């Protein structure tokens, strides 16, 4: 228990203060400089620049076909950029073949060698470096212990479960202690429970090995959990690069707000904006909408108000002295998820908003039910005003 606690504190200490991207003096480990990748007429990556720092757990997130895998494969050396430069620790790696890059990859399919035992799979990369037999054996044993597969060393991949195979793939890819570990959808093939556990194990591993991890995923929850920073990609471009909380709470555009998590998006007209905040108007509600944010737009412009379902309150009675930030409607549908319920409220204009509410009590005297008339309110800091 004590050791556990000490470990948590270390992770906490590192995680709390780790933000090299905010330090202008820090030199990035990996730099993508104006990288373009075309496959024939198709542009997979479009003039992309990105810095990734040492010891960072970096997530590349986006829908399939957005170019995230191509970006990773260029770093591994399987694809060459059409133009632009990729540097690793200051060195241009464009001409270096994959087998000479200090970068290892964990493949989505795991790509374990079916004719080799677990032991030989993990030893494969070490053998290429012509290490001594004793050094290889020591490292393999260490890796087997790390992924808790010591007793499975002699098995062939087809004699393992999916979770065990995933661990072998992970052990094989970190065995050479690469400068950067690339993880291509590493957890997609696992079931939900195992995936959740493995996410935290990955974070621990990254912390204890002190490596830079680059994970590619289409699963936003996975990216949010493991990554220090996330780059959201769409159609070959970076849409936003920021820590998970910033991506979620301060999305840069409607695309991001919509892509990450659930969001209610209201099209509104900007009435006034200033240093203290802004006021929006919508025909959907008679109340004015007042927010803490100052918006870079002019009065009369169309802007969008994005509010997460968990940031709104729902009540059966009209709240006392409400003058702003209130929507009314009837319950159109309820999603009961156990820990929380999601209420779909239909406003008189027909637009529906989602409000989630934790089920803090087991027994509620008068639960909110279908067809109820409800009042939905939110505070001035609950929503984000987006101009694009």
């Amino acid at each position, binding site marked *: 228990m004590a050791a556990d606690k000490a470990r948590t504190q270390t992770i906490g200490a590192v995680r709390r203060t780790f933000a090299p991207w905010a330090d202008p003096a820090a030199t990035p480990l990996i730099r993508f400089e104006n990288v373009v990748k075309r496959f024939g007429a198709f542009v997979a990556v479009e003039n992309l620049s990105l810095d990734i720092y040492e010891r960072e757990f970096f997530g590349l997130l986006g829908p399939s076909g957005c170019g995230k895998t191509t970006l990773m494969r260029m770093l*591994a*050396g*399987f694809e060459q950029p059409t133009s632009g430069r990729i540097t690793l620790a200051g060195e241009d790696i464009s001409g270096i*073949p*994959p*087998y*000479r890059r200090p*970068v*290892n*990859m964990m*493949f989505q*399919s795991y*790509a*374990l*060698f*079916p*004719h080799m035992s677990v032991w030989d799979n993990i030893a*494969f*990369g070490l053998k*290429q*470096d012509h290490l001594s037999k004793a050094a290889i054996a020591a490292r393999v044993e260490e890796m087997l212990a790390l992924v808790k597969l010591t007793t499975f060393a002699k098995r*062939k991949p*087809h004699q393992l479960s999916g979770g065990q195979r995933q661990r072998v793939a992970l052990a*094989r*890819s970190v065995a*050479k202690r690469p400068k950067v570990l690339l993880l291509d959808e590493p957890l997609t093939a696992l079931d939900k429970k195992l995936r959740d556990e493995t996410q935290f194990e990955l974070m621990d591993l990254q912390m204890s090995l002190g490596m830079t991890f680059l994970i590619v995923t289409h699963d936003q929850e996975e990216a949010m959990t493991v990554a220090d920073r996330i780059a959201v990609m769409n159609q070959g471009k970076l849409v936003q690069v920021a820590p998970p909380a910033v991506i979620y709470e301060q999305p840069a555009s409607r695309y991001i707000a919509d892509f990450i998590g659930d969001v209610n998006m209201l099209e509104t007209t900007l009435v006034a904006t200033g240093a203290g905040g802004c006021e929006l108007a919508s025909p959907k509600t008679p109340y004015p909408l007042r927010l803490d944010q100052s918006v870079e737009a002019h009065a009369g412009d169309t802007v969008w108000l994005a509010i997460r379902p968990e940031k709104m309150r729902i009540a059966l009675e009209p709240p006392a002295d409400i003058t702003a930030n209130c929507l009314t409607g009837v319950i159109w549908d309820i999603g009961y998820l156990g820990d929380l319920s999601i209420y779909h409220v239909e406003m008189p204009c027909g637009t529906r908003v989602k409000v989630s509410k934790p089920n803090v009590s087991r027994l509620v005297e008068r639960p909110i039910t279908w067809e109820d008339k409800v009042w939905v309110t939110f505070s001035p800091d609950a929503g984000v005003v987006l101009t694009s």
Partner: protein
Amino acid sequence: MAMAGEKGWGRRFVIAVPYLWLLALFLVPFLIVLKISLSQDMIAQPPYAPVFDAAAGWAGFKDFLSQLSIANYFYVLSFDNEFIAAYGSSLLIAGISTALLLLVGYPIAYAMARAPKGIQPMLLMLVILPFWTSFLIRVYAWIGILSPEGFLNQLLDALGLISEPLQILNTDLAVYIGIVYSYLPFMVLPLYSALEKLDGTLLEAAEDLGCPPAKAFWTITFPLSLPGVAAGALLCFIPAVGEFVIPDLLGGSDTLMIGKSLWTEFTVNRSWTASAAVAVLLLLLLVVPIVIYQNLQARELEAGR
């Protein structure tokens, strides 16, 4: 189980068809050949004795059994005759041919498996295309190519590379050329099917772990194609051991192969019984690689599960 009993007849019939086929067209002829190999030559019709007579009853059957002997096997396996040398020479020629087939077939199969997906069916077609022409005609064509006044010698002469024709026809070299040419599809197709299903990400993973592509071929591609190598080698080796047409047409008088010896024993010496013994021994000789092949296949099935 009751269900199986009710539904079983149709299913049993379907399963029985291949068994009946094997019984009628393999086991029964084999038993006839086995019986002849245990008989003695006679100048009669049929040219061997004893002849099984079902009408003679149990006593007749016992009499029939008592007349069978393994004398023919002693004759065939005696060092005074050329059969043992012919078996050995056949195994050697088949073995060398199989090795040559592997050397020629592997690069072809590899190139096919690595070709763009769109043209692979066409390449497959090209490999199978020679089967459209009769095997015999194709072997005769090689006589036209290899003979002293054939195309090859004319070409080399025209190019000024030779001053007198090369003697290729009627040598062991011509036999090797004939076998490699004729059996190539049987080597290429299993190799192609093994290489084609090889997961390309395995090679990427090997390269990612520091293994250059040429080395990855020997550590990843080749070991994973071994089932195809085994299938192709046995598909070529087994019929090549018993090959008759190619050594007869392309080989020389000193080319010793068991197929030719059998033919001589049957047609020139007119000994049905000794040639039957040669055939049975050849079969026993080939059962060994077949059993090895089946073991390999069983192991592959096991691994695939």
